């Protein structure tokens, strides 16, 4: 029918069998290094410093002083927390792009009792109420799209995404209601004098408690996904809904349960953001980490311990890039460009994990698996 068929292609692509883990990681590390090199070259061209200085500046931005290490660790903890929340849902092939909204609702859930009850009840009870409200608010925000997905198979990607913007507007509404002082259009530090509803510090380190909570959470999620019946059901539903139904798993229930968990953890992170970090609420408090979390979870193949590495990588890039943009007077979005480039490399390298390329000559030797 068409004569291109007679042409033999220059190379031939086949699916690979499982790679040994060290070769898989070698490919990933090479991709990250190539991505970092390209980032370095672009930075060099833009700010005209030698490439070694680029990396030196980035390292010092992320780890230069003990304060910077703490901030980096704190950012990592928050990003990791959101990624941990999203991972079970993704494992189930439920594209929860609503991490931002669920975390924002968590922030709202923590802020409301903090403002309304601050100073009226003992601190420990206040913190508990804040925690419960935050977790509930996040869970409800995740339940809405999950219920529609389970019942009518409503497109969850856009549903959860739109819920982000609805959440943003609700937060904006409450910021106007609670603005302090009047007309400032922001809430300001809540209970700055009494410190009611603030998470206690451990020793001198404001962020240590946040980080510890997220570490515990990492281990819990790992065990939940790996060794429990729930975790198993999630991965069966993710592999094939038909199989899941066949073996008697109630798919709807798994979807709703997993999303409740997902939203609840997002809510917990929202609580940590308000009560343990900034002690205020803004519409940009989550800062798009719901999206970055998607990539952190996906790049780590939903393994909580690998997520520590991927979130470190992304936080390092953003902190390093923000150091470069501060020093050279560039815009803060520089970090997003570098993160984007690095992500392209990591996403692209998956190809070499799953497929192999054989040149024309060796074509006969390649076994084609059905």
């Amino acid at each position, binding site marked *: *029918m*068409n004569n291109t068929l007679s042409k033999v292609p220059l190379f031939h*692509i*086949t*699916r690979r069998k499982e790679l040994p883990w060290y070769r898989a990681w070698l490919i990933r590390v090479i991709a990250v290094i190539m991505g970092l090199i390209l980032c370095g070259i672009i930075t060099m061209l*833009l700010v005209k410093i030698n490439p070694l200085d680029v990396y030196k500046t980035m390292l010092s931005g992320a780890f230069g002083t003990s304060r910077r290490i703490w901030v980096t660790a704190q950012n990592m903890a928050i990003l990791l927390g959101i990624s941990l929340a999203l991972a079970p849902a993704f494992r189930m092939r439920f*594209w929860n*792009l609503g991490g931002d909204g669920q975390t924002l609702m968590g922030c709202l859930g923590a802020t409301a009792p903090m403002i309304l009850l601050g100073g009226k009840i003992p601190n420990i009870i206040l913190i508990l109420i804040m925690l419960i409200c935050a977790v509930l608010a996040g869970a409800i925000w995740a339940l809405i799209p999950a219920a*529609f997905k389970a019942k*009518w*198979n*409503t*497109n969850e*990607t*856009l*549903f959860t*995404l*739109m*819920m982000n*913007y*609805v959440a*943003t*507007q*609700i937060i*904006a*509404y*409450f*910021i*106007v*209601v609670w603005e302090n002082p009047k007309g400032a259009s922001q809430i300001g530090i809540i209970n700055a004098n009494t410190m009611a509803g603030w998470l206690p510090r451990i020793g001198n380190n404001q962020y240590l408690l946040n980080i510890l909570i997220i570490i515990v959470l990492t281990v819990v999620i790992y065990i939940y996904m790996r060794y429990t019946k729930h975790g198993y059901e999630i991965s069966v539903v993710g592999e094939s809904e038909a199989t899941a139904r066949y073996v008697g798993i109630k798919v709807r229930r798994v979807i709703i349960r997993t999303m409740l968990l997902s939203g609840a953890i997002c809510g917990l992170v929202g609580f940590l953001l308000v009560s343990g970090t900034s002690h205020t609420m803004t519409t940009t408090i989550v800062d*798009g980490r719901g*999206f*970055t979390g*998607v*990539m952190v979870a*996906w790049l780590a193949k939903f393994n909580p311990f690998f997520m520590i590495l991927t979130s470190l990588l992304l936080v390092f890039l953003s902190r390093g890039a923000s150091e470069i943009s501060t020093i050279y*007077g*560039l*815009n*803060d*979005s*520089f*970090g*997003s*460009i570098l*993160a*984007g*480039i690095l*992500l*392209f490399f990591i*996403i*692209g390298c*998956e*190809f070499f994990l*799953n*497929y192999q390329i054989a040149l024309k000559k060796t074509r006969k030797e390649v076994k*084609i698996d059905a």
Partner: protein
Amino acid sequence: MLKFLLSFIPRAVTQGIPLMFGCVGETITEKSGNLNLGTAGIMYVGGICGVIGSFFYETKVGAQNMTAFLGIAIPLVCCLVGSLLMGLIYCFLTVTLRANQNVTGLAMTTFGIGIGNFFGGSLIKITNSEVPSIVLNQTGKFFKTQLPFAKGLGWFGTIFCSYGFLAYVAIILAIIAAVILSRTRTGLSLRAVGENPGTADAAGINVTRYKYFATCLGAMISGLGGLYFVMDYSSGIWANDAFGDRGWLAIALVIFTIWRPGHSIWASILFGGLYILHIFLPTGTELAVKELYKGIPYVVTIIVLIITSLRNKRENQPPGSLGLSYFREDR
């Protein structure tokens, strides 16, 4: 009433045009089976590339010496090239390397919005210019030029003829896309690729070529939405993050229009109207309610998503292989 419509409709249309570009572009992309969630990023890149092009032109020759042809052609070409590159990145990753489309799209969004805000915020610093901010008044004027007889037509002129040329380009593109998709052989092949690439491949259609072509074309059309927003709607003034979440609304509109570009004309204008509804709704004494009103377009989108999923008709389904990459030997 007429006075209200005369002020509401033109605003709704100018709000709706970027959505229309995005929706038409994304529909063409999705018809090839590629779910490009990077549309938001592509629209930023389209906008900023146009801004960079005309920034150089306007600072080089000065606003008085600009010709209308170059003043429009330069940003237009820059915008198309920029969005084309974004489309190529997406295609290379998802079609050639068969990467996950959702993750690639999100990375494109991060990257594209980063590019837009970075160059928007640092262009002056990088080029060592002496202007205080990116204000491309003259280019904006070229893009906003109305039909010469619009003023003389009263209310008819205000509602139908008071827009810059890109608005009409959007409507024409939507009609052309609708005709090509439903009436031509190319459209049929493209739909076949999106529905079932294996079958299309067996019928002798070059799946990779169709996917690349449709996605890149879709990206270029979406990019024009960004250009329209900066040059016409904002009169040539770039502000970081001003474009907002319109890219995501455009993707939602694709579902709303059930993958029919013809419908995107009225749907985009409807959503444009929802976007500015908060200006016209009464707030009473409680000003905070305005913030809640701003959430209306998103709530409506959610309701639309739910209704579409309830009305589960066969002809209203997304392309069969949407979001999946195609590997010939996987059959």
